[in-house]
Each structure stands twice: as C-alpha cells, then as structure tokens.
C-alpha cells in the first residue's frame, strides 16, 4: 500500500521530506572515514607540496583568465546575433557549489546525495554539473539534502547535439557501466564521428543548452540493425567529483518585442495575455517556468508575422500553443 502510494501519488512526499532530516546525520557518519583520512592527508602534507600546488594553481588561473578575456565580448556578440535571428534568448546561469554526501547503495541505480536541499532553493529537475560537464539532474529534494540522478543511469536520457554540426540525438544511460552512454535511434547515415563532442541541446526545456555531455567513443554500424550503435563517454568525472555545481538560472528581463500589426485583434491579445498567464500560474520552480515563457514568446512572434492577415484559423494556434507548453 505504502509503496504504491509513494510510486503513484505524492501523498508521502512530506513524510519522506521530514524523515530525511532525521537520517541526515547517518549519512554524515557514513562519510566520516573518508573525510577524516582526507583531512589527515592535508595535515601531513609538506610545505613544499603546498607551494608546488599553489604555483600550479596560479598558472592554471592565469591561463583560464586569459581564455576568459574575449568571452564577454563573444557572449555579447552571440546575443546580438541571436536577437537578429529572433532565436530564443540566452538565460544567465549561476552555479552554486555543493558537496557529495554519498551515493545510492543500490548497485543498479546511479544516484548521488548532495549536501544542499530545499533550504538552499534546490528544486527537482535542476541540472548538476562538475568542472568538465553535465553530471545529472536533481530528482528528489529534502530540506538539507537532495538526490541527483546521473546521466548514465539507465532511467535517464539526455537530449544532446553534436557540437560540430548540430545533429541532434538522445543519449541514454546504460545498465552496465558508470562511464557509458548510448545514442538512441541514430541513423547509420547520420554525420556522427568518433571524437565528436556532444553538448546538451536544451530541447527538453529542463537542462540548459550548450553544456558538454560526452565524447563519442565508438560507432558500430551493424547491417542487421536499422540504427547505428554509438557509445559515448561522459566528460564529467562521475565517480571522482567531490564538489559539484548546481545550476540556477537567473532569467534576463525580456526585451520588449514589437508585436506585428495584425488585423485580428483577438490574436494579438492572446499573444500578450498568454505569457503572463503562464508566469502567474502557481509553480514550484518559477525560474524554470520563466525559461519556457521566454522561449515560447520568442518563437511565437515570427509565426504570427508570417501569418498576419491570414485566416483567423492560424491565429487561433497562438493560445493553444501556450497551453501545450504549460
């Protein structure tokens, strides 16, 4: 009964939510051995080693800052070009550091426990990264901790695109290995090569676009199968990162979009009304919803400019479109 209620409905969310606070100390206790050995290691590290590490880190910082110099310029330019194309606007993202508390003891499930929860504003569906790429997304939030489902879990699928040419695919986790993804339903003729970098495509409206997911490791074209077997190695260090980054999106204020003059008044009204309706709807994670609004509004505008003055049947698609998104 209880299991059925938990898997099908949300009645027990609160029970789990508060019990999780009570058992958090146990997680800390379970992590004590590795933590103590880590701090002992720090304590007994020699001054020379610290100095060497410091020099290396300073050099790294210099190189990274050098690489950053042109980033601001490129970002601004990219945004201008996107606006010219009326493409979806870029969302600013802020990363917050979280630490790993543990991992799922179930050998068949690849989930991590991190030390930030709803008290810090973590929400279900939030992307989690490390320094090298996408790690997964938050699937369960408790007050002090949350569970992250890794991208290589067989229950997780990530919409990706090839960075080189924009070919889209879905990278699904595998039950066998922690370090392997497979691209699903890739045609044997698709332009995917070994060594291609895959980035998130953002088509799921959940994970932001443009973060590295993995590198294509091998492609097998079996003539007996209709699709190619493509194995991908994730770029994130799924078993080594102790520090992870939680991505918070801080949407920019939407630049005022000039609405095209239309003969159908109801249509333009619907366009103005609908986004505010979506934004006003009570949601758990307003930030994620705002992203949806931004993209929906932007992509809807060119639609109407093409169909301005056309039959009102076209215009009626506007509001229906928004309802679908919501």
């Amino acid at each position, binding site marked *: *009964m*209880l*299991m059925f*209620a*938990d*898997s099908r409905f949300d009645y*027990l969310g609160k*029970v*789990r939510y508060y*019990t*999780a606070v*009570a*058992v958090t100390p*146990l*997680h800390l*206790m*379970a*992590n004590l*051995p*590795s933590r103590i050995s880590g701090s002992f290691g720090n304590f007994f590290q020699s001054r020379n080693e610290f100095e060497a590490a410091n020099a290396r880190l300073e050099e790294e910082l210099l190189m990274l800052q050098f690489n950053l110099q042109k980033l601001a310029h490129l970002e601004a330019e990219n945004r201008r070009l996107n606006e010219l194309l009326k493409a979806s606007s870029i969302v600013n993202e802020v990363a917050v550091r979280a630490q790993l508390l*543990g*991992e*799922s*003891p*179930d*050998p*068949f*499930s690849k*989930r991590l*426990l991190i030390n930030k929860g709803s008290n810090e504003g973590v929400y279900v569906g939030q992307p989690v990264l490390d320094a090298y790429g996408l790690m997964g997304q938050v699937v*369960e939030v408790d007050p002090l901790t949350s*569970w992250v489902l890794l991208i290589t879990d*067989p*229950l997780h699928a990530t919409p990706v695109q090839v960075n080189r040419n924009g070919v889209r695919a879905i990278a699904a986790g595998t*039950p066998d290995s*922690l370090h392997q993804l497979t691209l699903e339903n890739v045609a044997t003729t698709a332009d995917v090569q070994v060594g291609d970098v895959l980035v998130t495509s953002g088509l799921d409206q959940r994970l932001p676009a443009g973060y590295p997911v993995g590198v294509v490791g091998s492609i097998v074209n079996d003539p007996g199968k209709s699709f190619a077997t493509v194995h991908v190695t994730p770029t994130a260090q799924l*078993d080594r990162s102790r520090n992870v980054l939680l991505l918070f999106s801080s949407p920019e204020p939407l630049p005022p979009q000039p609405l095209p003059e239309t003969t159908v008044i109801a249509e333009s009204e619907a366009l103005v009304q609908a986004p505010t309706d979506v934004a006003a709807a009570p949601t758990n994670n307003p930030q994620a919803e705002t992203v949806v609004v931004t993209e929906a509004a932007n992509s809807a505008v060119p639609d109407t400019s093409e169909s301005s003055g056309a039959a009102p049947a076209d215009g009626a698609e506007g509001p229906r479109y928004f309802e679908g998104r919501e």
Partner: protein
Amino acid sequence: MVEISKQSHNLWVIALSLVFAAVMTIVPIPTWLELWRPDWVALVLVYWVIALPHRVGMVWAWTVGFLLDVLEGSLLGLNAIVLTMMAYIALTLYQRLRMFTPLQQSMTILMLVGTGQILVFWVQTATGRNTADNLVFVLSAVTSALLWPLIFVSLRFWRRSFRVN
C-alpha cells in the same frame, strides 16, 4: 543482575546495533564491491529476533526498514515490507534456528536474505525502477550468509555484556 533486568532492558543496544548496520549499508564502497555488500540490517535484525523474539519483532523491522528507505532514497516502504517479511519468517523459525549448527544457520540466512532480495527486485521491476536483467543481485545473500557466524558471535557477546533482555 535481577535488579538491572527489572529496571531496564537495555533496548538502546539493539537500536544502536541497527543504526550501525544502517550506516554500514550506506558507507561508500567501490562500485565492483557494491554487489557483494551484505545486507547488514537484515543480519542484525534477524539476530535480535532469534535472540529476543519477545522484544524485537515486526514493528522494529518495519520502523528500521522505513528509515532505511529514506536513507537510501529508495521506494518508500520497500525495505520496510521486506524486513517485516524477514522478521516474520525468523519469528516462526526462531526455536529451530537456535538449535541449528552455524552452517545450517548460514544456509537459512542465505535463503532468507535471498528471498528478500528477490522481493526487492520484483517490486523495483514492477515500479520501473530496476533495469537489471540477471540475478547477480542475490550475490549479497551469499556474503550475508558467509558473514552470519561472525555477526552472531559478536552480537551475542554484545548482548551478554550489556545484559540486554
């Protein structure tokens, strides 16, 4: 000795051993070892059921299993129902189990934990949370059975030194 047993049953020893077992369940270990991780909570629980069937029963099992569910982030009630089932079987068998040789006890533990693992597998598959397509998950029953004599002896020593009854 009689005065102590009248005043307190030292039930905290049982609780502490179960908490320790729960921590052992979530201690990070290498991935290849995870399949072999013994079912610590089941072992400790079954010991207490055999030793003190009038104190530790299905209510303890359900409570511990519930906490374990939250701890592991698994389906709420999964470990609770499995441990309750194990406690029920142990309660019906405890008089025989006490007479068994260590080897016979280990074999019983193998069956008990194995049944529990299969039940977990069933429920997880039915709710779409499991993607395993073989039976390697029963390996933990084997380790549990191998560890049972050690658990039995050390917990008996603990029970006697704290006079838990």
